[in-house]
């Protein structure tokens, strides 16, 4: 059962990455997550939103990034969606060290994968990309660390 849901849509500009992080940090604190877990959520959201702006919209500021949060009793779902250029080969893009930008190390998906319990990426070329990440709550996670 959903206990809370929030949505934020914002322009694809670098300033908004920090705002997306602030939102997830507030929700994490409200859910009584540890400071460490909140840090990890911030990194995961930062990577997903940065990907949307840098790759989805190719740094073009005139677009909208959608961030949706769905909180259930035992999970926090984070959805980051763009309506940008899409990824032609999702599997390849998710490989560590794959990057189209030499300065970004290709670590975005690695961090999302490490810090979240579930990660799903759906993408259609020229239509956009949706990244869905789930964090299990209440320490019932089989992969909780």
């Amino acid at each position, binding site marked *: 059962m959903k206990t809370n849901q929030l949505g934020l849509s914002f322009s694809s500009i*670098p*300033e908004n*990455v*920090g705002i997306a992080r602030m939102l997830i940090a507030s929700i994490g604190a409200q859910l009584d997550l540890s*400071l460490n877990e909140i840090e990890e959520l911030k*990194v995961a959201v930062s990577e997903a939103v*940065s990907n949307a702006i840098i790759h989805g919209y190719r740094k073009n500021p005139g677009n909208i990034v959608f961030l949706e949060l769905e909180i259930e009793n035992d999970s926090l779902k984070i959805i980051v969606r763009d309506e940008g250029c899409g990824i032609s080969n999702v599997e390849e893009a998710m490989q560590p060290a794959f990057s189209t930008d030499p*300065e970004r190390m*290709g670590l975005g998906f690695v961090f999302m994968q490490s810090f979240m319990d579930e990660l799903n990426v759906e993408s259609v070329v020229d239509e956009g990309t949706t990244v869905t990440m789930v964090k299990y709550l209440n320490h019932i996670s089989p992969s909780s660390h």
Partner: protein
Amino acid sequence: MEKVIERQTLILRLNGELDMKTADSLKQAIDTEIDRKGIRTVILNLQDVQFIDSSGLGVILGRYKKLYPLNGKVYVTNVPAHIYKIMELAGLTKIISFYPEESIIREELRKGNVR
């Protein structure tokens, strides 16, 4: 950001969040010193950095890669524990030299123990 240049060593004391918003200006601030002033040793003091993601890590690794063929070096100091964890996961701690305190590496450089 606080900048000190001492004996051809650039010391940057960074603060705030190292993400895609701040990455480009940090990159430029360092590259200007490398390209125009011939700086070959860069010390990054991360004591007051609150957040880092792959954009910020990319700037640090990028400066390492830029300096490497020039026989230059990047040293990272005073890293908060939660930032260090991210850098460790990224594999940065295996490539770049870390020091707990800025004063330690500055002393080592002064004595000529490292360069």
